[in-house]
């Protein structure tokens, strides 16, 4: 009989009609599905993409016994990168520092640019003093015979540089792009046997690179970025554990900028939530309990931060501080206080809305009774209203916190996006995206999603059951 706030009376059940319910479920369920898919997509991306690593392959780890390194060992070296090599004969390793052929050897240090100079042992003009180490050749048997090397990758990579060792004629490089266009590139004519060419490639996504040697030659090194990393033995045995230990989230967490941005986010959001409550409790109470001149106007003004485009909020804050004393402006704009101020400017409006709704649900009679029972105005508020408003305060605080966490537009304009200074998590996502690190951006987004879900769960458990945004 006593209608108390928060008491959830069971709503009457309405007889369901299959067709009717199904139509409504499809219409509304699509959106729910979209939300779930968004989250699942992020998670799937994180599990699938362990980040991009830069790989530099030289064939030096295979030892320097020239000519004796066979195909099988070469493939074993390439296999962790998800790549393989084939040639018109049998790919072999040639040790340039210890050449046994009559023509080849390590080129001279003067080979600064591509394709100039003559190297090689025996007949070479210059001394063999540039250490190229091992070189992969299509076939070692006849060093002037034409041949090719063909590299294939299981997953697309971006090859950015090749170090080619060639004879006199230019070497052709063919990169088969993922978009089925072929990128052709040719080295300059070699100055003689054993010339070195450093080739820079545009780094298109590819899964196949072919190198044609018109009169013999080989590959001294290759650089590419690939969607993976080398795994230790234990990781190959326990792939799940390995994914838990090494994933973009852990990687992001280990960066000092991200650690700073997490710390700043946690602190600024908490301060924002406290300030918002500090304002929202009295303001919400006044709006809920009293009618006064200009109440409608104040109510409308409180909607402004909610409906205003976020960038405009930031810009307005920036403009406002142009009128402030220089010392104050310098202390706030583009500094940490600006982060908090920008967050409060928006989050507080939500907190006020919720607190007003929370106070609306508290029977004013409870306070009246408290007044007759010997309480003053303030003590009736603190002893009767506040305890009843506690779930509402929790809801308002957590939602203000979550709003502050997602705040971006005003922050970018008013506080800037300086690493290790005013960088919060939403800024981090933006910064990582702008340098093209998608998986780091998703990883930080994921950290924010987890934080937001925690807040949501907290609110659902301890917050008011009857108000939500």
């Amino acid at each position, binding site marked *: 009989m006593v209608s108390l706030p928060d008491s959830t009376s069971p709503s009457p059940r309405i007889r369901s009609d299959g067709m009717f319910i199904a139509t409504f479920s499809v219409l509304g369920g699509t959106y729910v599905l979209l939300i779930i898919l968004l989250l699942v997509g992020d998670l799937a991306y994180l599990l699938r993409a362990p980040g991009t690593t830069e790989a530099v392959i030289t064939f030096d780890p295979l030892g320097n016994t020239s000519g004796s390194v066979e195909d099988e060992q070469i493939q074993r070296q390439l296999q962790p990168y998800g790549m393989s090599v084939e040639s018109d004969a049998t790919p072999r390793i040639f040790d340039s520092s210890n050449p046994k052929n009559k023509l080849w050897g390590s080129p001279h240090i003067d080979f600064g640019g591509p394709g100039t100079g003559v190297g090689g042992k025996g007949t070479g003009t210059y001394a063999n003093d540039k250490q190229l180490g091992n070189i992969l050749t299509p076939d070692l048997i006849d060093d002037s015979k034409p041949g090719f090397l063909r590299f294939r990758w299981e997953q697309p990579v971006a090859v950015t540089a090749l170090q080619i060792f060639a004879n006199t004629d230019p070497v052709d490089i063919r990169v088969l792009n993922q978009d089925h266009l072929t990128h052709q590139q040719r080295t300059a004519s070699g100055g003689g046997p054993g010339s070195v060419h450093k080739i820079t490639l545009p780094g298109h996504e590819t899964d196949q690179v072919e190198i044609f040697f018109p009169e013999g030659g080989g590959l001294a090194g290759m650089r590419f970025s690939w969607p993976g990393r080398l795994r230790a033995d234990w990781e190959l045995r326990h792939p799940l554990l390995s994914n838990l230990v090494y994933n973009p989230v852990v990687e992001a967490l280990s960066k000092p900028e991200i650690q700073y941005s997490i710390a700043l986010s946690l602190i600024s959001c908490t301060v924002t939530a406290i300030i918002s409550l500090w304002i929202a409790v009295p303001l919400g109470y006044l709006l809920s309990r009293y009618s006064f001149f200009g109440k409608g106007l104040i109510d409308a003004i409180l909607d402004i931060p909610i409906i205003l485009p976020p960038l405009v909020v930031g810009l307005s804050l920036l403009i406002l501080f142009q009128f402030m004393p220089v010392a104050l402006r310098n202390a706030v704009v583009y500094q940490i206080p600006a982060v908090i101020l920008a967050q409060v400017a928006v989050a507080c409006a939500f907190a006020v809305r919720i607190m007003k709704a929370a106070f609306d649900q508290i029977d004013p009679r409870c306070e009246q009774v408290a007044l*007759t029972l010997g309480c003053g105005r303030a003590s009736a508020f603190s002893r009767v209203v506040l305890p009843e408003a506690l779930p509402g305060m929790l809801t308002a605080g957590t939602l203000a916190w979550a709003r502050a966490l997602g705040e971006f537009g005003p922050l970018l304009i008013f506080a800037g996006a300086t690493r290790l200074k005013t960088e919060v998590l939403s800024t981090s996502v933006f910064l990582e995206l702008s340098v093209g690190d998608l998986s780091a951006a998703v990883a930080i987004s994921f950290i924010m999603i987890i934080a937001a879900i925690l807040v949501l769960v907290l609110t659902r458990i301890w917050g008011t059951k009857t108000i939500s945004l």
Partner: protein
Amino acid sequence: MITLDNISITAGTFQLDHVSLKVPHRHYGILMGATGTGKTTLLEAIAGLIPITNGSIILGTRDVTSFKPAERNIGYVPQDGALFSKMNVRDHLAFSLVARGEAPVMIKERIDELSSMLGLCDHLHRGIRNLSGGEKQRVALGRALASHPATLLLDEPLSALDEKTRNQMYQLLRNVQKNIPVTILHVTHHVADARFLADTLLHLSPTGIEEIKSDCVSAWMDKESGAPPKRGD
């Protein structure tokens, strides 16, 4: 004694003009009236919760017109009890004593006294949510009586109770009035409340308050309750 001397109340669009009433010391006053005549407003004015624009309110021998609610020495039970949802029964009974800074020993003594009088001994630790309607009303009553008020204001305390509970409450209210030196003003629109409880019966209508003299109470009640339609009509 409760005396209202020619008071006027303006609350929003509602207006109550030049109303006077008198409930003698330790009488059980019942104020009846149709919905919307301002019974609750009048009670709130006596409690000091809304200001009056004219006249004076005298409780006992004190003119409390300008007093704050806390200073009027009243107990107030609003329409639906208005219990504090976050407190248990014991907290309710202790509330006014704690608010007035009584010693813990005194408070405990008073809680024991009240809970045995109101039959709440076994419920002291219980929360408010799962009390029955009658129990809630007894808690609200206990909360109002805890600090020994000289005046008790009841706003439709029995309106939502079932027949059996209502009869038990009649008995309880009678006992309260008999054992405690308190003057009661009970607002209701149930004729039965008046029949079982009233020492002084007052009727509020748009024209003012008239006291129904004890010799014509029965006739007035019969007139007020009207005759129910006969079955089959």
